């Protein structure tokens, strides 16, 4: 049994594993939305552009953290693997939304990602030792919560536009 699988069974993960998954999560999202921009109609491009921009900010945050010696010092430490980790890790695999996805498809995918990220970062913020990494997870948990609420608002306005 590999060390990774062993750790999964024991419910523990190293900070490095968590960190790498989170970094990959944000990078994949940024790449996914960036590549999607030219494939969507201009009327919904604003939505994908905003999503790509938000993910880029998160990628930059992780890039800066990886250069921080304080974070580097705790990379080998073990912390509890978040319950939401499975769903979060699955998001590394991006879906095929088709050649010209509409606003609802993009929003539903984005909502699913934000929800997984919110759960993951909220748990990590609680279990990570105090320091810059914990601060980052607290920040990200708040960010993802805000993004999710904002996306839900957009979803309601866009899809549930009300009766005539």
């Amino acid at each position, binding site marked *: 049994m590999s060390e990774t699988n062993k750790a999964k069974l024991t419910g523990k993960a190293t900070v490095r594993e968590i960190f790498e998954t989170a970094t990959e999560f944000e990078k994949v999202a940024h790449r996914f939305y960036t590549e999607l921009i030219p494939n969507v109609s201009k009327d919904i491009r*604003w939505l994908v552009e905003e999503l790509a921009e938000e993910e880029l900010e998160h990628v930059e945050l992780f890039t800066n953290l990886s250069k921080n010696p304080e974070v580097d010092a705790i990379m080998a430490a073990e912390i509890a693997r978040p319950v939401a980790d499975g769903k979060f890790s699955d998001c590394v695999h991006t879906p095929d939304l088709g050649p010209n996805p509409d606003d609802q498809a993009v929003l539903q995918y984005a909502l699913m990602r934000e929800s997984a990220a919110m759960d993951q970062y909220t748990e990590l913020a609680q279990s990570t030792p105090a320091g810059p990494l914990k601060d980052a997870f607290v920040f990200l948990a708040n960010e993802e919560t805000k993004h999710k609420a904002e996306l*839900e*608002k957009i979803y309601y306005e866009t*899809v*549930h*536009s009300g*009766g*005539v």
Partner: protein
Amino acid sequence: MGLREVLTPFTVWKHVFDDPVTIKQPIGRPAAERYRGFHQNDLDTCIGCGTCEAICQNGAIDMVAVAGYDPEKGNSGLKPQIDYGRCCWCALCVDVCMTGSLTMSNEYTWVDTDPDAFRFVPGLEEPWKDDEEGYEREGKRVLSGIERIHMEEMEPEARIGNFDEIVAGYSRAEAILEADRCVECGLCVATCPAHMSIPDYIAAVRDQDYDRGLQLLYETNPFSEVCGRVCTHKCEGSCAALHEGDPIAIRWLKRHIIDEVPFDRRIELIGQPAEPTGRKVAIIGAGPAGLTAAFDLARAGHGVVVYEALAHAGGMMRYGIPEYRLPYDALDRDIGVIEAMGVEIRTNCRVGRDVTMDELRRDHDAVVLTIGLHMGRSTRVPGTEGAGVEKAVDLLRRITDGEKVPLAEQIVVIGGGNVAMDIARSMARLQKAEFGKVGITLTALEDIDHFLADPEEVVESREEGVKIFDARGPQEVMRDAEGKVTGLRTWRVKSIFDAEGRFAPAYDQSDERVHAGSMVIEAIGQAADTSLLGAALTEALEWNRGRIKIDTAFRTSEPWLFAAGDAVKGPDVISAVADGHRVARTVMEKLAAREVAQ
């Protein structure tokens, strides 16, 4: 002259030893408990309707602005200022007050060397402001009627088996009585998106001058047959009468005027359009915004062609609103007047298929896009793809076209807006005709107090046998092994919005329900089909969060293209009418500017 006549003047001497009635120092002498003294006004209750000003026989009251009281829906923000050099203390203003805010203290003495001091706004700082004694109207107002005149409507049992119009319309006698309740305050005018001359046309009903009434209607709205039946009547929500009774039935009175004027007479009264200008305007979409713009432009002498993709004009007024609410012949009369102004409507002509945007641009001086919201949205919960799940707007369109639509004995509708009610009630009628009974379940995310549908729609749906389950979030359309729909699985919605009012539905998963049905209809929202624009124009245009970007004058980023109506502003007939006027004005300004330049 007799002795009696000589002595009578001396009889007044009998009081010579009595105490004098007059007193040297009257200040501070209390008045009777209900004496009508200086006015009091509860400024927070006063809605500034000006009814007191209108009724004052001495012109003693002026409505004035007061710092800290801004205009809002149903409230002008103005307050009565009373000139006591004119006031005769009759208290008519108190008796007529629509909210009961105006009363009178029993304070009657006030000495001041400044004559202007006796003209002031009651309710601010005067010492008797909060005195309890004085005069106030007993009970509710009696000078104008409290209760709305009953509108005859078909009983649920009679109406469920057909698509006949439910509302009968007022007789003349009923209309006069209802019109008589209006105090002509005009608060409604500000609320109406088209700013119709409501008090004036209600006065025309009272005067039985229907010609004048019709002319007033057409000043601001060429869709009075429609709006007299299905307007969202926001005006009634700001009516001064609703504070102590029913609001005036403004919508029904509008319909009454139009009912009283024969079609040919309407055209006579409106008169002929201006001389042809030689300018041509293309309008895409024959809904309320497009046809209102067409009416205004044609009246101004411009050549107007309306391109309509469907078989008949009217847009959502015809294809979204069932005939029991809006009969097609009533809609046709409104459209007929517009056509009589010279507007050409080309039906079955889909832009992008039968004519291109480039051709419209080439052949016209301006193009107006009023395409409405004709694409139904889906929840896209599991199970929504495949047979047995329909979209409400598609079914409503097919019913209007007389097509046979899919039907089941038990149907589940998702949605809490007017479209959901329209499809639920339409399918209920078809079920009654086919199966002899109604089997409709309607589920909505919102709780019943926050349904987007008009309250009367909810009431009438229930009367017709529609079972409403509010605060239910759809999770899955259930299907059997053969893929046939068996029902809709929902969770109870604990809350739809978060503390900041954002959409964030929270479900109670332990409260799960399966609403049985072999057909599910989604009526959750609509979108505009902008595919007619083509890729190049879609790219060229500027967009605003999914909608074509327009400025306050309804100009798009392309100088030849204008846009209005539901597709750019939101769904509501009267708002679309208002938009239609505005976009027409902008187009006319553009054409006039070009005329000057040439």
